[in-house]
């Protein structure tokens, strides 16, 4: 009897231990892995986790399916890069300016769009994001229009004369990304275990019921939007400084808005780890498609002959089809895994423990 309790404790302690090991590994990774491509993928995953988790606060917890989050991503990226390029303000200050811009504009957007519910809110969020994109195209003095902003140099980060990093390698971006990822995971947990989390979920489940229980709908929806926009904006700033070039067609596009939603939906919305899993699956997958690694692997494995019709077709076309495949993946997940990958895994685990008991 005593022993079985001890075992149970051991099992319960395991995930905590795993998490600590994972965290330590993530911190040491740039010291172990020298491949810049691996670090590049990790940074892209971090950016995706931040924007997916940011969306998750509004979409997953409060149930307001915004398909216009590229607006906040773009506002972060544009504010940070414009300040850096035209005013020589370092990005670690500019990013906060980006957060302020995104939150303020978000609250204006929210106070208009949150009057709408369900599909009407979704459409309004798309429309507003398109307005932001078209504005960025036309406000040439601020944004340089369709040409976008190319940053020529990032000032070194120094404290009291000691240079900490000059941003020539990928490592500082890796740590910046990791820090924001930890911040959003922590924030999501805090939200989940507070009055905010309960109110967000009540709004998601039934707005009229929530309203009748004393919940100020527009206040709490706007709070969710503010947290959501702040993190999405940080993701945009990180992306902008990391890639060094932004234009409305990439950082403010509807494509991006859809991608943000998919990260959360595929991973599992309304959970802390869903968007993390979504990003960890989707980023390498789309990278593999884009770099033609999947077609090459099929050919290398001998499943498809390189010179055969299928082989040459895949080699030429598969990399162009990544958006199509992304879409199919979303359909499959929505049809068969309505709670996302995380929900599916949890259900399996629950079945197993039930079977064992």
């Amino acid at each position, binding site marked *: 009897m005593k022993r079985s309790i001890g075992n149970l404790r051991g099992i319960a302690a395991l995930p905590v231990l795993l998490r600590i090991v994972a965290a330590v590994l993530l911190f040491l990774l740039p010291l172990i892995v020298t491949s810049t491509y691996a670090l590049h993928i990790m940074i892209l995953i971090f950016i995706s986790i931040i924007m997916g988790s940011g969306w998750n606060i509004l979409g997953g917890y409060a149930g307001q399916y915004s398909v216009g989050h590229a607006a906040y991503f773009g506002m972060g990226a544009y504010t940070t890069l414009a300040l850096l390029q035209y005013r020589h303000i370092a990005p670690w200050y500019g990013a906060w300016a980006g957060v302020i811009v995104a939150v303020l504009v978000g609250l204006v957007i929210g106070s208009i769009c949150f009057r709408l519910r369900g599909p009407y809110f979704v459409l309004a969020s798309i429309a507003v994001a398109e307005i932001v994109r078209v504005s960025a195209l036309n406000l040439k003095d601020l944004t340089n229009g369709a040409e976008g902003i190319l940053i020529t140099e990032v000032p070194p980060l120094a404290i009291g004369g000691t240079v900490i990093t000059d941003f020539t390698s990928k490592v500082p971006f890796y740590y910046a990304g990791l820090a924001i990822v930890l911040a959003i995971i922590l924030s999501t947990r805090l939200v989940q*275990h*507070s*009055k905010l989390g*309960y*109110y967000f*979920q*009540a709004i998601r*489940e*039934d707005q*009229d*019921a*929530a*309203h*009748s*229980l*004393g*919940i*100020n*709908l527009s206040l709490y929806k706007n709070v969710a939007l503010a947290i959501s926009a702040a993190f999405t904006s940080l993701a945009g700033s990180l992306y902008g400084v990391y890639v060094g070039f932004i234009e409305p067609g990439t950082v403010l596009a509807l494509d991006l808005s859809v991608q943000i939603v998919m990260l959360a939906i595929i991973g599992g919305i309304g959970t802390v780890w869903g968007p993390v899993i979504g990003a960890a699956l989707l980023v390498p997958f789309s990278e593999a498609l884009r770099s033609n690694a999947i077609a090459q692997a099929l050919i290398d494995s001998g499943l498809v002959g390189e010179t055969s019709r299928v082989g040459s077709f895949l080699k030429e076309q598969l990399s162009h089809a990544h958006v199509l495949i992304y879409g199919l993946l979303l359909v499959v997940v929505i049809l068969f895994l309505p709670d996302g990958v995380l929900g599916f895994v949890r259900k399996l685990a629950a079945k197993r423990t039930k079977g064992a008991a």
Partner: protein
Amino acid sequence: MAILEINKVSKFFGGLAANLDVSFSVDSSDILGLIGPNGAGKTTLFNCMTGYYPPSRGEVVFDGRRINGLRPDAVCRLGMARTWQKVRPLAKMSVLDNVMVGALCRTNSLARARETALEQIKVVRLDHRLGAKAGSLPIGERKKLEVARVLATRPKMLLLDEVMGGLNPAESEEIIGLILDIKKLGVTQMVIEHNMKAIMRISDRIVVLNSGEKLAEGAPEEIVADPAVVQAYLGESNA
């Protein structure tokens, strides 16, 4: 003393008067039964009182304060809470979490909200279902959950919209017991109900609505003897 006064409240939808110059008052700690045929405007009146519709005319005074025009959440915080004819469980949340959402109306602390919630869940006898998802409950338990959830907002007045609808006699009996328990706590109640036996038993006073207008008002025994009420319910030829 009247805790609620409704003065000449009207609600128009286009040319249709869903409520027309309805006036009555409810005394503190009383149970007021609101009855009338389908479409008489009972639920519309609830919606006008709790901020879901602004009344087109007239005023609602609750606890000395004019409340028409306030939002539903503000009305709830002032101490008037309602349930829904068609129950609205927060489906993916547990029974405990559902009731905690109600309790959080009065506190920011999850621990205190949990305490209040557990208390109210005990009152409606749902303690054996704490962890169950609200969406998985059968209708009888959903109705009880609905009551526990509004009780957790610590209302001075409770509006119950057909809490016995769809329940079997045994379940209805439980709800009747619950309503009488709530009365003992000093909470004023206004009850919409089609179950005539039940409403006659629990009500201190009854208001009858017909086609949006107040048809009659009085003690249960006066209402059953009122020819106008009998006619409205049974039709001209039977009167």
